[in-house]
């Protein structure tokens, strides 16, 4: 088993930040602050080489789930067990400093993603090659377009060589050629015994890349199973809701 989540819940407090200390204490006493459960009792397991998509409406807890798995935030209750190197690309271009060059950012970013100096030196050419950014390597990243940042960020994340890669809706930025390249790269993950955990609203990508899907709704795991059926359920469930809200579905 690569990853095990057991009854994981995450609570945030609403309306309690940036107040005077006294105000805060008073509200806690009066229980004015209300809890918001971003996740409630989520349990699932991921085996080596298994890829899955995480789908659900905005605010369903998908990104919170990924943050907990990545270890940047902590669950309020429940257990999270990781049994391998987990790489997270929760947002494209995080850890990139605009004033540093592409070359410098590769080193910084790769180290933050868990690569050692010798690994970065060994993989440097391959990182640059995959990103297709050789001509801009010594330019500051602030001069890059968002697509170019995406290319570099994705390339570094892929080369961090995680046993499980967490992606949070990051394919949307690159051009079609690069998207295709990324998808090709991650679709060979199962053969290499690696896993992909992938938050997306693009059902085509979800179906193409992941045999398994998780559907989160208001922090609760609604369905966990083969992608076709979970996505089908999700789409069936979201249609009437959208019509009630007066939104035309295409």
């Amino acid at each position, binding site marked *: 088993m690569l990853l095990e989540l057991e009854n994981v819940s995450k609570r*945030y407090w609403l309306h309690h*930040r*940036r107040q005077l*200390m006294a105000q805060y204490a008073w509200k806690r006493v009066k229980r004015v602050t209300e809890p918001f459960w971003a996740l409630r009792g989520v349990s699932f397991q991921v085996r080596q080489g298994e890829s899955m998509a995480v789908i659900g409406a905005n605010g369903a807890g998908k990104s919170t789930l990924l*943050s*907990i798995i*990545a*270890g*940047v*935030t*902590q*669950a309020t209750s429940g*257990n*999270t*067990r*990781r049994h*391998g*190197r*987990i790489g*997270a690309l*929760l*947002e494209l271009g*995080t*850890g990139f*400093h605009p*004033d*540093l060059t592409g070359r*410098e950012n590769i*080193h*910084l970013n790769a*180290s*933050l*993603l*868990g*690569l*050692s*100096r010798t690994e*970065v030196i060994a993989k440097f050419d391959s990182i640059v090659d995959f990103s297709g950014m050789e001509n801009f390597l010594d330019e*500051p990243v602030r001069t890059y377009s968002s697509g170019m940042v995406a290319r570099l960020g994705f390339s570094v994340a892929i080369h961090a060589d995680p046993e499980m890669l967490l992606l949070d809706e990051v394919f949307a930025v690159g051009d079609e050629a690069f998207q295709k390249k990324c998808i090709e790269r991650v679709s060979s993950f199962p053969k290499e015994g690696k896993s992909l955990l992938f938050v997306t609203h693009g059902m085509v990508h979800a179906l193409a890349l992941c045999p398994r899907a998780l559907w989160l709704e208001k922090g609760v795991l609604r369905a966990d199973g083969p992608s076709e059926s979970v996505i089908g359920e999700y789409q069936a469930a979201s249609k009437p809701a959208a019509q009630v809200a007066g939104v035309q579905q295409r």
Partner: protein
Amino acid sequence: MTVIPTTHDHYYILRNLVEKDFKVRYRNMSLGIFWSLVNPLIMMGVLTFVFTVIFPSQRPNFWLFVLMGILPYNFFTMAWATGTNSIVDNASLIKKVPFQRELIPVSVVIGNLVHYLIQLGLLLLAAAFVTGVNLQWIWLPVVVLLQVVFVCGVSFLSSSLDVYYRDVRYVVESANLVLFWLVPIFYGFEDISPSYAWIYELNPVAAVVLVTRRILLHGVSPGLTIWKLAAVSVMTLALGAFVFNRIKKDFSDYL
């Protein structure tokens, strides 16, 4: 319960973070790192003017005397102020990239340390010409190390609390202003009445100035003061690391 495999190359991350700060700070500047020498030299000039022309002091080489106060004070206040802001300023990293959070304030302190070491090098050069080298100089690396220990301790404390109460950075700013007067920069330890002197020795910034002057100006051993400095510094680091470690897991929820 959360278990994160620690596969990170901490030294490499630290080095990259320190290099980042340097490059970002000095890129597009023609004088680069020399700017870090300009500020203490201006302070030295002003204080020397005031205390040799306006309130004439009897001290020989007042400029050297005052520089031994300014440099440790500057290092401490710069490192503490930037250290305090470091976690909040790196919110995007904290929220999105899992790595040892301690490395952020530590990298900021090390960045300031590099500047300090360059300044100290010039100070030693000046001291060597004016008062000569003596055997007590071997204490200097220990003094610098204890300064780093202390400033890391207070930075752990203030940077983690700053996540919850952003007022902390203003408290730190005010404390640094007050310190300018409460650290013997332009006056000497012997000017302090004995009934307050023991408090000064327990203030690590003041103790460092005292010890540095004993070593460099008078060529005498740092004495008991360095042990008091060590005790307070280590205790501060222990407290800071404890608090930081206790609340670091919630940083991303409050940033």
